């Protein structure tokens, strides 16, 4: 490592988590990066502005176009993802909006696999449509349906992998092959996988999208999103971000960089806890079904095993013969995980998708999205495995039904 880390370096993932993207020798010889809050950056003279404009020096100009803290994290994430470039946004949704607003124009079409984050779907159906962009959805993992839905207007095909909350894993080889064959760009939301477990760029995917709020930040204390891809494809995306202004703040970027230092350790632990808890749940008599790619019973198990190092901390499960209130009562009895949305932090969280994300949807639509009344989604943190299992056991086995009053 010389002045800054080489993204193609052969160093281990843990070493890259700590060092990649950072200058070896930092200002004032500090071991950690400083937080640069300046909203604007000054020039020595008019001549230096002219030199900057003509020669496009790599330096700061105005805070909306970027800041030093954000650039360090962009380099680190690009290195970890094995991508040429990465662009950070103020949230995961800001990232997908920034990419799609850049790549799609009136008359263009985009196709999603139908298991996807409900806000991404909502943005495309309700808002991109206002700008004349048409969104299609096909059954998750159905490559023939995806191929059949493509027409000359199609510009992008999109999937999560694994999907939320069903944890379906996409055959990236087949997905990318469709894109290449038809000249359509591919986008993978890899939030649940993270580059520790899967690097979609290596499979030929054009864009990788993360809500970096989740495993990357890892401490439930910052919002961030990122798009990774080639320099060439991301250049106009970066320019548009400079206009739309959905940049992240230096303070957040510092916390994200700090969070990434323990990325490898945390992911190893999330993977471990996720697998152990999924196995515990599958063997529990009160549980009807568990969705976790590390289980042989999951339809995506074979493809997950082939492509992923581990399967993360998100586990979804159904309670046997339970209505939504009885299911809620189990959640309410948990003592360690707090009840709330989000995932990927050190603290475990638990929620009922029906209540948390789909309460306003009519039942038939919920059924269409595979959201059941007796479904629980647990975002497993890095607490002690036995503590979490014991807590779930008491919550599942307690006899007092309790639950919400309505």
């Amino acid at each position, binding site marked *: 490592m010389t002045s800054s880390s080489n993204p193609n370096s052969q160093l281990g993932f843990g070493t890259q988590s700590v060092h990649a993207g950072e200058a070896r020798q930092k200002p004032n010889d500090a071991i*950690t990066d400083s937080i640069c809050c300046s909203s604007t950056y000054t020039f020595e003279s008019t001549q230096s502005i002219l030199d900057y404009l003509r020669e496009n020096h790599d330096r700061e100009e105005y805070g909306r176009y970027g800041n030093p803290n954000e650039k360090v994290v962009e380099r680190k994430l690009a290195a970890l993802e094995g991508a040429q470039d990465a662009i950070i946004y103020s949230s995961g949704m800001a990232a997908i909006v920034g990419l799609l607003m850049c790549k799609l124009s009136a008359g263009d079409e985009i196709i999603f696999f139908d298991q996807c984050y409900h806000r991404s779907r909502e943005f495309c159906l309700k808002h991109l449509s206002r700008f004349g962009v048409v969104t299609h959805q096909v059954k998750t993992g159905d490559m023939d349906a995806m191929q059949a839905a493509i027409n000359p207007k199609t510009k992008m095909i999109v999937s999560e992998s694994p999907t939320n909350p069903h944890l379906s894993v996409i055959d990236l080889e087949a997905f990318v092959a469709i894109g290449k064959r038809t000249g359509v760009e591919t986008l993978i939301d890899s939030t649940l996988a993270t580059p520790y477990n899967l690097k979609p760029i290596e499979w030929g995917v054009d864009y990788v999208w993360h809500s970096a709020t989740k495993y990357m930040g890892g401490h439930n204390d910052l919002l961030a999103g990122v798009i990774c891809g080639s320099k060439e494809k991301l250049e106009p995306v970066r320019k548009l971000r400079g206009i739309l202004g959905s940049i992240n703040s230096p303070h957040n970027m510092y916390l994200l960089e*700090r969070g990434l230092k323990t990325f490898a350790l945390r992911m190893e632990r999330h993977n471990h806890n996720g697998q152990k808890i999924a196995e515990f749940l599958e063997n529990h008599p009160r549980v009807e079904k568990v969705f976790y790619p590390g289980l042989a019973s999951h339809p995506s198990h074979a493809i997950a095993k082939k492509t992923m190092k581990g399967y993360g901390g998100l586990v979804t499960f159904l309670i046997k013969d339970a209505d939504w209130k009885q299911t809620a009562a189990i959640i309410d009895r948990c003592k360690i995980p707090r009840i*709330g949305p989000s995932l990927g932090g050190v603290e475990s969280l638990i929620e009922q998708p029906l209540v948390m994300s789909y309460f306003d949807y009519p039942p038939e639509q919920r059924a269409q999205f595979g959201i059941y009344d007796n479904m629980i989604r647990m975002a497993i943190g890095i607490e002690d495995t036995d503590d979490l299992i014991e807590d779930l056991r008491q919550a599942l086995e307690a006899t007092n039904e309790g639950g919400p009053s309505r």
Partner: protein
Amino acid sequence: MKFRTRAIHIGSEPDSTGAVVPPIYLSTTYVQPGPGDWGTFDYSRSGSPTRARVEKTIADLEGAAGSLAFASGMAATHCAVGLLQSGSHIVAGCDMYGGTYRLLHKICNRNNISVTLVHADDANHIAEAIRPETKMVWVESIGNPLMSVPDLEQIAAVTRKAGVLLAVDSTFVPPCILRPLDLGADIVMHSATKYFGGHSDCLAGALSAKTKELHQQLYFIQNATGSVIGGLEAFLLHRGIKTMELRVREQSKSAMQIAQWLEKHSKVQRVLYPGLPSHPHHQRAKRLMGDQFGGMVSFEVAGDIDDAKRVCKGTELFGLAVSCGAVESLIEQPATMSHASYDPAARAKAGINDTLVRISVGLEDPEDLISDLDQALANSGGA
């Protein structure tokens, strides 16, 4: 609940906002219910919600009656020796951080407090040094930089019998490995800048007391002297503690691997790591600490002071810097850096050679760290 679960949840209980991560309070003062009618918090030197949370977490992890968070490890140490008075005597282990040596010999002496340094690896040395005016015994649970391991149980028996306070600087051995209070210590000091914070980005110190009375006495001194931790640092410290057990487990594993590798290296004279069977206190360390020995490793380079300097300067992944316990690996030469504040004669007496190199193993891949040390040793000249 086990250590890691408690580190994440104790002290982070929900407030009225429901936030999973408690808000950061920077307020210097708090509005009171009435004149002379004090609320929970008044002036932030006396306490703040953010500091109170991290103190609660630390107390739980240490098994303490109460903990106090300071602006630095030295501020915490200064508060602890604030229990002494003019004419008091302190017995301290000589395998000791240079800053503590400086405080005891060059600041405490101004208050007519005297110090006797002993090799603390034998509890008899401590028993023999205790005088009627001795008020405190100060030892490091793994000595810096020679990695000696005192028998805290035996020393606690000595101090209990003599009616003397036992204060343990456990900076090299965080509570996920060793809890000195459980072994009979009265006070534990941590430079929380190290394994607690863990990310080289917040200075912090912590004192944990075995009894409520001792906690109250220390709190009185802390509040009166004012070297408290700030709100932002308290937040970063609390954030770091959540991954402490994971980090230390990994660092212990990597340090063991590196120590074993160093021991076989022809340019290394001697490796000091309590996890190695060759370490004189290996059995004792195993009894007290189990199967983890932390991320600090010292070794003597075959050659002279310049060879040791060349090793320290020659690394590319290890940063050449004092401090330790963080995600980034560091390397330094105690004689010229962490222990330069010792008088040279005292340094020689303690056994800190000029060829000694101290490393703090971070979270990088251990194979990457070994290849870095390999090239630095290869280019060092020497034997």
